C-alpha cells in the first residue's frame, strides 16, 4: 500500500470525518496547538537567545537546559499530539499540501540541528556554561534554530491556504513537490 493509499484510507475513517465535520472539536484542537506554541516555541526561543548571548547572560546554560527543557519537551508533546489530530481531521488535503511537506522537512532539520548541537559543542559545556560568550558553534546552532522555528511557524500557518492545492493550475515543480497526480481535483473548487 502506498502512503497516499494509506492516507486516503485514513481520510475515510469514521473519526476522521467526525473531526472534520465537528463544529468545535477542530477549532479547539487548533487553539491548543497555538497555546502550546507559546510554551514550546517560546521556551525554545529563550534557549536559542541564550545561546546567541541575547538574554539571561547570568543564567548558566546548563541551568536553562535542566530546568526549561522538560517544559519544552512537554510543550512539544502537546504540539505533536494536537498536530497529528489536525492532520487526522484533513488527511489527504494536508498530505498533498506543499507547505505541510516543507514543514515536515524543516522539522527534521530542526531535529538534526538539536542533535548536532547536543552531541557537539554541548558536550564541552563546562568550558562555556556561564560568564562567557557561547562559542561559535553554539551561537550558530542557536541562530539556525531560531530561523528554522520561524520558518516552521510560517509553513505551518500556510497549510491553511489553498493557493497550491492539487487540481489548481500549477507549475509542474509545485505539483511534483505536493505529490499531485493527474486526476486530482481542487477540493475547494
Amino acid at each position: 500500500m502506498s502512503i497516499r493509499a494509506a492516507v486516503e484510507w485514513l481520510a475515510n475513517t469514521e473519526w476522521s470525518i467526525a473531526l472534520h465535520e465537528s463544529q468545535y472539536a477542530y477549532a479547539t484542537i487548533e487553539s491548543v496547538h497555538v497555546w502550546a506554541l507559546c510554551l514550546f516555541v517560546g521556551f525554545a526561543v529563550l534557549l536559542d537567545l541564550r545561546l546567541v548571548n541575547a538574554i539571561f547572560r547570568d543564567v548558566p546554560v546548563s541551568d536553562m537546559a535542566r530546568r526549561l527543557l522538560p517544559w519544552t519537551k512537554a510543550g512539544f508533546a502537546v504540539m505533536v499530539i494536537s498536530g497529528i489530530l489536525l492532520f487526522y481531521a484533513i488527511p489527504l488535503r494536508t498530505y498533498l499540501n506543499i507547505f505541510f511537506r516543507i514543514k515536515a522537512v524543516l522539522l527534521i532539520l530542526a531535529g538534526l540541528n538539536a542533535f548536532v548541537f547536543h552531541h557537539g559543542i554541548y558536550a564541552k559545556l563546562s568550558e562555556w556554561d556561564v560568564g562567557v560568550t557561547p562559542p561559535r558553534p553554539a551561537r550558530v546552532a542557536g541562530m539556525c534554530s531560531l530561523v528554522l522555528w520561524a520558518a516552521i511557524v510560517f509553513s505551518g500557518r500556510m497549510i491553511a491556504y489553498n493557493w497550491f492545492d492539487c487540481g489548481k493550475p500549477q507549475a509542474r515543480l509545485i505539483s511534483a513537490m505536493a505529490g499531485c497526480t493527474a486526476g486530482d481535483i481542487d477540493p475547494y473548487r
Partner: protein
Amino acid sequence: MLLSLFQALENGAIGTAVRDSLWLFPVVEVFHLMGLAVIGGAILVVDFRLLGLGLRPHPVSRLARDVQPWVVGSLVVMILSGVPLFLSEATKCYYSFAFWTKMTALLLAIIFTFTIRRSVLFAPDGRFSPRSYRAVALTSIALWSAVGWGGRWIGFS
C-alpha cells in the same frame, strides 16, 4: 456610531490593501504568530518562576529585567501586525464575540502586566509571599491565555 467607525476603518487604505492582497493577510499573520511565541515564552518563563517552576534558583527581579525588552518588543510586533489584520475585517470583528473578549482580556492583561505584576516582579526579594507570587502568575497566565484563545477564535467566527 462605533459600527460606522469600524466600517470606515475597513474601507481605509490599509484595510483595503490587506483585504485585496492574496498573501498580505497570511504573511502579516505569521509575524503575529511569531510575536506570540516570543511574548508567550517571555511571560511564561517568569510566571513559571513565580509558581516555583523552571528557573527557580534565580532572583525574580533579574529574570524579569532580562525578559523585559523581549516582552515590550514582541508586544510592539503583535500590535503592529494585529492592527492591519483587524483593519482588513473590522466589520466582522465588530460582530465577533471572540474579538471583544480578546480586546477586553488584552486591555486587562496589559494593565495588569505593567502595573501590579511589574511592581511585584521588581520588588526586593522577600517582600511578597509565595502565595502572592502564585496569585500574580495565575492571573497573568489566565489573562494572556484568554487573549490568545480569543484571538484564535476570531478566525473561526
